[in-house]
């Protein structure tokens, strides 16, 4: 067998991100020394990114089943039943490393990749979200990264014509050298037309469709599996370049083909490109693969097998067709002016055999390579519990209204309008008016039905750092609350686990703790994990990011007209707080912005209370007793009320109840399991709450155009809006 004649030296092995032990295992599997192409294939297949070798052991502990789950983790995306023969298909995925190196293309191709994960299963994408985390606003690179990432997400999502309806954006110095770009796509399919990746049937043709293969993105998966250092920018050539126009054509062509009966299995070429898609399809179907690389559509001349197999060129798919359907399929792709090439066939050999210019250039056993990828039980240490901060320890501020202004205009709380107005959030004509970006969750009608999906993404990394287990509970719970606050029934989540270097026991302990907390919350809330992605090694020069397990979540409204938004609706409506506040200031926005401290325990999460309060709120919304609802999270009660005022463009009169809490602890404590709702009949609502064992307190009424707080003064909402909405545009213009 001939191939490139490069000698496999220890340096070559190391530069492929493989350990000595891993190389030993390769020799064992192969029974000989691999050639360069084969080594390259092992390196991407066994990279952290593709193999989940550090995280698998723990991911397996997450609950993934419920009666409404059609397909959990392991496929391209999770599939959940939404009734009437329809399913929602969704996943979130990170594109952190490429986005730091080349923000526009990194973020754009992140969107492209996650879209493909969803439409490859037969779903039409109907909503995109993104969770972004940048370094400190003072860091010299932050502005450039924000600008590039936002333009990249918009440039891709706007062109493919899928609305970007929600997300989040935060700043923290721990992300100075490792920003996070987590992109989520939600799609809708018919339950009898869901496509999986398993390739079956020896002799069936393997078809390559989409863009041509170039030299871009080679070793992207390996790059995403190591720490950054000063010279990481030299890795720019490993960032792929996206073409959303081709993606749009690919969506339409694939969905058109999927309406026929031609497809046996289909898989997008994402990380590790042709290698990963080929192995995954063959391994799942228990077959072998023969590929003739001369037939792969190529963008550049003289590409080697190594380059073709490791290229991460975008907008490509691999399919196995039923024999004899090639012409029918080809006609569809030709109509959409996309490449279509039969590049090989399935075999019963259990091997992947690659030929190039008449010679065999690689011959690899599929299952040993795909299934025997390393799995590590990395050492970990639990995070020590921080001290509890009592509210009394925190000096009461002179002016609560001034604090409100300061908090709502700080980088993390300031309006992200500047971002989401660069995203087309209305294309496809189903984004509900009350579900546009900026609220608890995006609301998108299921086209042609009365149903709607609520979609959200959430994470509170500072809680996860202080106490990974409580933080892990909180991230799942907050996503559940956000969906509940629209009136929707939460269905399931996708998790995007962003952490530092798992080889460090402290970091691994954060990962293990977050998973433990997430698991408890998923179980208590019947909110299983159906898909996910892990991004480790988010460290630069030894500095890790905050543990950031981003949760994407989807809920269902069977009658979209029952949904409520977060904005105040009418003067005279009563404002009622559901749940008890105890003035928890540890790890709060207040503590950080006003006291300059990032310490204490995060608010504890009582999952029984969450369930009881949330189920009560949802029932009240669906019964029409509540006309606006917003969950209480970052910044506490007064921030929530102010956001409702801004969203509805109406003021309110609020009175602090005589509950023994200091004003700042009452106003800005971040106790969980709470919502603010408005109602026309507070007596009835409070009586219902009492009967359900749910605390409910009438704190004021919607009125006028000021936020007025008993003895603490008042603030015009137009003034507050100016403050709230100007931080980000001013910063970006600076």
């Amino acid at each position, binding site marked *: 067998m001939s191939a490139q004649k490069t000698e496999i030296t220890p340096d070559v092995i190391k530069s492929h991100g493989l350990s000595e032990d891993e190389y030993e295992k390769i020799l064992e599997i192969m029974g000989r020394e691999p050639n360069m192409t084969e080594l390259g294939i092992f390196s991407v297949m066994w990279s952290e990114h593709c193999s989940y070798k550090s995280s698998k052991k723990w991911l397996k502990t997450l609950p993934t089943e419920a009666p409404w789950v059609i397909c959990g983790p392991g496929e391209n995306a999770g599939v959940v039943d939404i009734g009437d023969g329809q399913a929602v298909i969704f996943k979130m995925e990170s594109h952190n490393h490429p986005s730091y190196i080349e923000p526009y293309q990194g973020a754009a191709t992140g969107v492209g990749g996650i879209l493909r994960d969803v439409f490859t299963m037969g779903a039409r994408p109907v909503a995109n979200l993104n969770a972004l985390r940048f370094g400190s606003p003072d860091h010299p690179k932050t502005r450039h990264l924000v600008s590039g990432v936002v333009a990249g997400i918009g*440039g891709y999502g706007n062109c493919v014509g899928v609305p970007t309806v929600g997300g989040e954006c935060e700043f923290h110095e721990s992300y100075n050298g490792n920003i996070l770009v987590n992109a989520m796509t939600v799609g809708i399919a018919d339950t009898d037309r869901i496509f999986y990746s398993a390739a079956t049937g020896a002799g069936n043709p393997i078809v390559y469709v989409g863009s041509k293969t170039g030299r871009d993105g080679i070793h992207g998966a390996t790059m995403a599996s190591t720490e950054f250092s000063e010279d990481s920018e030299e890795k720019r050539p490993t960032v792929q370049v996206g073409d959303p126009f081709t993606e749009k054509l690919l969506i339409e062509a694939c969905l058109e083909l999927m309406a026929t009966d031609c497809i046996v299995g289909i898989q997008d070429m994402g990380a590790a490109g042709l290698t990963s898609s080929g192995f995954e399809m063959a391994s799942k179907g228990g077959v072998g693969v023969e590929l003739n690389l001369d037939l792969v559509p190529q963008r550049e001349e003289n590409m080697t097998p190594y380059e073709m197999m490791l290229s991460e060129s975008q907008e490509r798919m691999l399919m196995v067709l039923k024999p004899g359907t090639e012409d029918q399929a080809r006609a569809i792709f030709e109509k959409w002016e996309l490449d279509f090439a039969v590049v090989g066939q399935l075999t019963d050999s259990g091997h992947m055999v690659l030929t190039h210019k008449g010679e065999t250039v690689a011959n690899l056993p599929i299952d040993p390579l795909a299934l025997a990828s390393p799995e590590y039980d990395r050492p970990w240490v639990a995070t020590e519990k921080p001290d509890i901060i009592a509210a009394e320890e925190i000096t009461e501020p002179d002016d609560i209204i001034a604090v409100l202004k300061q908090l709502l205009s700080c980088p993390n709380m300031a309006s992200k309008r500047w971002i989401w107005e660069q995203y*087309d959030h209305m294309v496809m004509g189903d984004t509900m008016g009350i579900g546009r970006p900026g609220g608890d969750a995006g609301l998108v009608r299921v086209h042609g039905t009365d149903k709607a999906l609520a979609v959200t993404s959430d994470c509170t990394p500072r809680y996860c750092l202080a106490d990974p287990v409580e933080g892990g509970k909180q991230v799942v719970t907050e996503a559940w609350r956000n969906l509940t606050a629209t009136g929707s029934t939460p269905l399931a989540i996708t998790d995007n686990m962003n952490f530092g270097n798992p080889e460090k026991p402290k970091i691994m302990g954060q990962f293990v703790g977050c998973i433990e907390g997430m698991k408890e919350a998923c179980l208590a809330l019947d909110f299983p994990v159906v898909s996910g992605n892990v991004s480790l090694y988010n460290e630069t020069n030894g500095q890790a990011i905050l543990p950031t397990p981003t949760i994407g979540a989807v809920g269902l409204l069977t009658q979209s007209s029952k949904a409520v938004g977060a904005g105040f609706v009418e003067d005279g409506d009563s404002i009622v707080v559901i749940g008890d506040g105890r003035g928890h200031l540890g790890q709060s926005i207040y503590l950080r912005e006003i006291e300059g401290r990032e310490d204490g325990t995060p608010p504890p999460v009582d999952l029984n209370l969450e369930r009881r309060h949330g189920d009560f709120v949802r029932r009240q919304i669906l019964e029409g007793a509540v006309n606006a609802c917003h969950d209480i999270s970052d910044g506490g009660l007064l921030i929530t009320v102010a956001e409702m005022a801004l969203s509805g463009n109406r003021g309110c009169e609020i009175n602090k109840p005589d509950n023994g809490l200091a004003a700042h602890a009452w106003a800005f404590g971040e106790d969980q399991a709470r919502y603010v709702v408005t109602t026309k009949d507070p007596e009835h609502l409070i009586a219902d709450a009492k009967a359900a064992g749910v605390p409910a307190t009438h704190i004021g009424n919607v009125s006028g155009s000021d936020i007025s707080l008993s003895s603490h003064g008042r603030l015009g909402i137009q003034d507050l809006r100016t403050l709230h909405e100007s931080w980000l545009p001013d910063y970006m213009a600076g």
Partner: protein
Amino acid sequence: MKACVIVFPGSNCDRDLQVALRNAMGAEPEMVWHGDSTFDDVDLITVPGGFSYGDYLRAGAMAAKSPVMREIIRRAGKGVPVLGICNGFQVLTESGLLPGALMRNANLKYVCRDVHLKVEATDTPFTQGYGNGGVLRIPVAHHDGNYFADDDLLDELQDNDQVAFRYSDANGDLTDDANPNGSRRNIAGILSRDRNVLGMMPHPERLADPALGGTDGKAMFSGLVEALS
């Protein structure tokens, strides 16, 4: 009334327009593929938003040269009403059916938000649904909506009453703040000299349903059905 929606590779508001027309007409509009050089006789041709041919070269430039556009130009010359929205407007200027050009937004950023429009001409089939004019709230979503024409052309458009919509504030005042993209004289939509071709950047099809947050776009479609049936 019979209507059609032209579908280019990269169109992405074709379905939105189809829904708005269907709701107004009570019948299905015909979806016409860009490669077709002819299509059934219709009373209204619509060119939807999106990124035809990826907006490569210039927004609308390649679509303007497609087989179907030759047929549209021919029919427009015979007086058939043609409505181009967003990318459709860009295609119509590129093809010469409407004067002027749409440049990159003045702040160089894509913008998606509700804007206010002052209705400047109501004696057309497209705008007769707006009675005596008034101010509408309708979204824009574009990167290249900055309408440009030289002073002579702008004066001519004005003299001939060819400006259909201008960006305004909620009171109908034509302020700079109300202009989302830097368009000259706040122009959001223009008519051809013969008044049978309208191009506009805002998306009336996106706010023609109360659940979506507004219905100011609806009267354009109901007015068209009334005028052309």
